[in-house]
């Protein structure tokens, strides 16, 4: 897959006009992470609604098109879902959102940063333990 394919309209569109970008006034969950190897940053805030659902979700951050677009796409997908749904999220889901899995190992970390932040936040809220290996492309 060529880079022209990776950076198709959709990703560029989300990069330049990210959905759910910003902060919430009231929120129950907040998480932040950076990719130490490339410096990308993503924060997420979630307001939990009735029945432990993701009532509202916002992200902010800076970084490459892949990290920011995938975080933005993920917030759209997550909105309205029960918190427990987050546990089932896998990297394949992210690849589906992005429309590609053909990323080098370092770019995969960019793609999965949003998911890592979302899981960290939700698992912390649920009192569960986040297993790093899920977001580790070397495994």
């Amino acid at each position, binding site marked *: 897959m060529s*880079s022209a394919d*990776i950076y198709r309209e959709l990703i*560029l569109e989300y990069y330049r006009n990210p959905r759910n970008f910003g902060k919430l006034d009231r929120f129950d969950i907040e998480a932040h992470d950076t990719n130490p190897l*490339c*410096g990308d940053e993503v924060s997420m805030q979630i307001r939990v609604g009735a029945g432990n659902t993701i009532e509202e979700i916002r992200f902010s951050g800076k*970084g*490459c*098109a892949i990290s920011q677009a995938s975080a933005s796409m993920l917030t759209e997908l997550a909105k309205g879902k029960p918190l427990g749904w987050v546990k089932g999220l896998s990297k394949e889901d992210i690849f589906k959102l992005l429309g590609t899995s053909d990323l*080098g190992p370092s770019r995969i970390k960019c793609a999965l940063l949003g998911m890592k932040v979302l899981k960290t936040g939700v698992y912390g809220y649920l009192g569960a333990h986040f297993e790093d290996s899920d977001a580790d492309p070397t495994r």
Partner: protein
Amino acid sequence: MLETEALDVEQVRADFPILTRKVRGKRLVYLDSAATSQKPKQVVQALVDYYSTYNSNVHRSVHTLGEEATAAYEAARERTARFVGASPKELVFVRGTTEATNLVRFAWGERFVEKGDLLVTTLMEHHSNIVPWQLLARSKGARLEYVGLTEEGTLDLAKLESLLKESPKLVAVTHCSNVLGTINDVEKVCSRAKSAGAATIVDGAQSVPHMPVDVARIGCDFYAFSGHKMLGPTGIGALVGRKELLEKMDPFQGGGEMIKEVFLDHSTWNEVPHKFEAGTVNIADAIGLGAAVDYLTGLGMSKVRDHEVKLMRYAMETLNALKGFRSYGPSDPSTRGGVLSFNLADIHPHDLATILDEEGIAIRSGHHCAQPLMRWLDVAATSRASFHVYNSYDDVDSLKAGLEKAGEIFKV
């Protein structure tokens, strides 16, 4: 300069086997030498020779292999020291620049720095010339202050002078910035710092590989550099230190080779530089570094420097014409080292690097281990193209074409 005196790039390239490799079906255009340089076959051959004909531990050995290995290791020390104008007794082999600054932190800093002391570094440093001083300041209750930068990305010398009035214990400064390319007048900085009573450490990671360096003229107390950026193997580098100072310092790591005598309750130390080389040293790679020094000496460091200035001038002219192109650091190519950091419109450097990689072009993207500088530049990251002896105008042209393609994809 006569044209016959210039570097013969084609001849140089023939010494680097990796350059014949294809990346994603394209010719490899390697523009990431500031991260690590490629290695000529002469360096690799020095490793192969060592391992296949005289591999042995050094210094404590009476047998032939051991004496050959010791002689080759010490000869590499001698050649590397002379290469930067030092004496071999003043050159400690370390893993690289980072281990060198940390050695100074532990062996000099833990001994001589006290509560309330001031340590000075600059905003353009690599993390390896910042974090050790943060850790030292924390452990000793000392203060760490930064010399800021001018608009052009040179040191704010007025700020330096005002910090020197506070009698700092240490001034840590890079010879050449790995992001801005700025070449600092370290001779002047060291002489001013010395007058103020400060010890000085100069980070030579981006200078020793690219220009003639003479530590005696610079007049610093410590000078650090990495072998892997100067055509040498990974895992080896050097700390050069003034002998009297090295002798006064505590040892760094403890173990074999650095001791003179070990008793149950205490030990005494070997002579410098061995006092700082605990355990089995990186014999093969030190010898490989010696071969890299020979190779560079053979080319001539002034020629290497001239070549890179010419390349930089061409690159700045060529790339500045691109829409949305913005570069950082001094505008005069003859005052910079061979690194060019830039951004192209709103394309994130990682995305840029991915697109260029598809064209066989290797650049670096990110914070370049200089986060404080990134914040000062007010960017999250930059792209960086960096040169060495094997780069040519063709490589610059390829980069330009790659950037044009990226501009199209991102609809810049």
